[in-house]
């Protein structure tokens, strides 16, 4: 996928060589105003002293990072131990987001494959159908999901009426509900990149494999999957990263009993804590983790391309 974009890009560069700087201006401006500036501000804030009830005092301080990594007891005067609270919260978020990603992959991959193997003229219709639910606001979809899943809700009523279960399944306010909510929120981000990859896959390769007596499983594993891997990885990143920072699904479907990274950060700005530097520090740590993940991916991609070339 990356290679295709690059070769397309070089053709464009030649045609519009003189105006290249100008054409890039909007992108640069948008990125620097909407991404670089807020992130730098956050980075600076995470190293400042907190002001009581929100705000910062312009004095350098490592207190926010200290709070994240060291436990000094309820009253802050004990010998520092490793603080597990925030590591636990981060771990829980990673785990929930990971489960949601696997769920999306399990459902999204066959769906994408199905769409890509339809006759060409009907594919846009299937893609269109996938996106329809996402025209509705995320909050409303999450609330509806809660309504469907709750103990006296339609989902449980249905299962009871067809005799599958005797008493309602308790789903709302569990971790599973959160995973389900995240899966539902971000499913199209999994389907669409995989669809784009599978659509460009040359199915005569599968036929050739079959001619050479490869089983269907081997064809899928050795021929199709390596060819569409970039799409699968892009889909996984697009589901995993926003799931980690999400707080709507955990709050509404999970009952907000346990902080996720997103709700922990929100509490620092909108809750009683009013601890802006700590909120900024937690955001920076989250961002660093995501960045490391993406760098590993990028390096592997580069290495893969080298061995191919």
């Amino acid at each position: 996928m990356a290679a295709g974009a690059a070769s397309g890009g070089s053709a464009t560069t030649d045609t519009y060589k003189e105006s290249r700087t100008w054409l890039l201006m909007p992108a640069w401006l948008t990125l620097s105003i909407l991404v670089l500036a807020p992130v730098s501000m956050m980075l600076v804030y995470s190293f400042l002293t907190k002001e009581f009830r929100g705000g910062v005092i312009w004095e350098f301080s490592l207190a926010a990072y200290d709070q994240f990594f060291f436990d000094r007891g309820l009253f802050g005067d004990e010998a520092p131990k490793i603080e597990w609270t925030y590591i636990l919260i981060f771990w829980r978020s990673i785990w929930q987001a990971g489960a949601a990603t696997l769920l999306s992959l399990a459902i999204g991959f066959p769906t994408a494959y199905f769409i890509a193997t339809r006759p060409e003229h009907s594919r846009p219709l299937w893609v269109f159908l996938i996106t329809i639910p996402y025209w509705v606001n995320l909050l409303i979809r999450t609330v509806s999901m809660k309504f469907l899943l709750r103990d006296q809700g339609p989902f449980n009523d249905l299962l009871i009426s067809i005799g599958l279960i005797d008493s309602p399944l308790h789903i709302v306010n569990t971790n599973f509900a959160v995973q389900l909510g995240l899966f539902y929120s971000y499913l199209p981000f999994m389907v669409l990149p995989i669809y784009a990859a599978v659509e460009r896959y040359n199915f005569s390769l599968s036929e050739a494999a079959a001619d050479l007596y490869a089983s269907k499983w081997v064809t899928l594993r050795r021929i199709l999957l390596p060819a569409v891997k970039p799409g699968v990885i892009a889909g996984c990143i697009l589901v995993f990263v926003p799931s980690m920072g999400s707080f709507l699904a955990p709050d509404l479907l999970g009952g907000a009993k346990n902080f996720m990274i997103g709700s922990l950060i929100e509490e620092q700005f909108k809750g009683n804590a009013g601890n802006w530097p700590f909120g900024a520090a937690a955001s920076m740590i989250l961002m660093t983790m995501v960045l490391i993940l993406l760098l590993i991916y990028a390096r592997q991609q580069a290495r893969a391309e080298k061995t191919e070339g």
Partner: protein
Amino acid sequence: MKNLMKISTAALALSLGATSASAEGNLVLYHWFEYIPQELLDKFTAETGINVTMDTYDSNESMLASLKAGAIGTYDLAVPGDYMVKIMAGEGLLDTIADGELANKGNIAREWADPSFDRGRTHSIPYQWGSTSFAVNRDVYQGDINTTDILFNPPAELAGKINMLDSQGEVMAMASLHLGMEQCSNDRTQLKDLNAMLTAAKANWASFNSDTAKEVLVSGDAAVGQIYDGFSAKAREEGANVEYAFPVQGYVVWMDNVVLLKDAPNRENALKFMDFLLEPENIAAVSNYARYASGVNGVADFVDPELAKLPEGNPPVSAGAPVFIEVCNAETQAVYDKIWTNLKK
């Protein structure tokens, strides 16, 4: 020529009109969403000729954040809750109302004339007040509900069916009442007890939610919900068989207040509006709209009679003392934040 005359007369009339309007001036409110009927604002404009503009917010903390981030000087009046009045005064965000500046100040009910959060009412006037306690579904539990044990040490029928407000202040205040300790106590043993009690109680809670505090009771997802009195009454109107509790250990009261902001651009008009809201007929219109009580004398003739009969507004004799949420100092607040994070980790 005739036409020109007509046009210039019209222009003259228009400009005269404009001057007279600006002579009466403007008033800029910073208010909660859906908390004042539009008809009342129209009535104020009709009586005084003052144009009213209003921006809204959805929490005390977000209003404070916006004013601290530079909105001070834009607004004349805001409507903070009790503890927030004290915080705003401490941050120097409020102007002082001098003696005699408010003609109707005498209309304030005696019990609200000198509240702990604004001694002598030097910055604020009462707007609406009510209480925060909890409501219990009577189909699920028939025993005595007037005890904080229902939330923190519940009977078996209610365990696992409790929704708490997702608000540190409300939960901590109720927990302090349950343990019989002062709010914001900085006694270490008491703070440790508070931490241990909440951690143990959480095992019996289904969820933390403020926005849907009423819906979870109506839908039956929760059998007990920590809730505001007005929400409890609405839950009953919507078909939930809930009863509002007045624990013997005490319960939380709150009052929203209209405050005069520092650097108000239309200070005179702000005072006029405050006087307007202290007229019983006008503040009763707010009560009829928002379903809460006012803190003004003589409203009885104007308030919807149904409102006075609500059980939420009539505590039984067994009810403990009502308390406001207190403002902790920075040191105790840091411990509270830690307890809250522990509770939700």
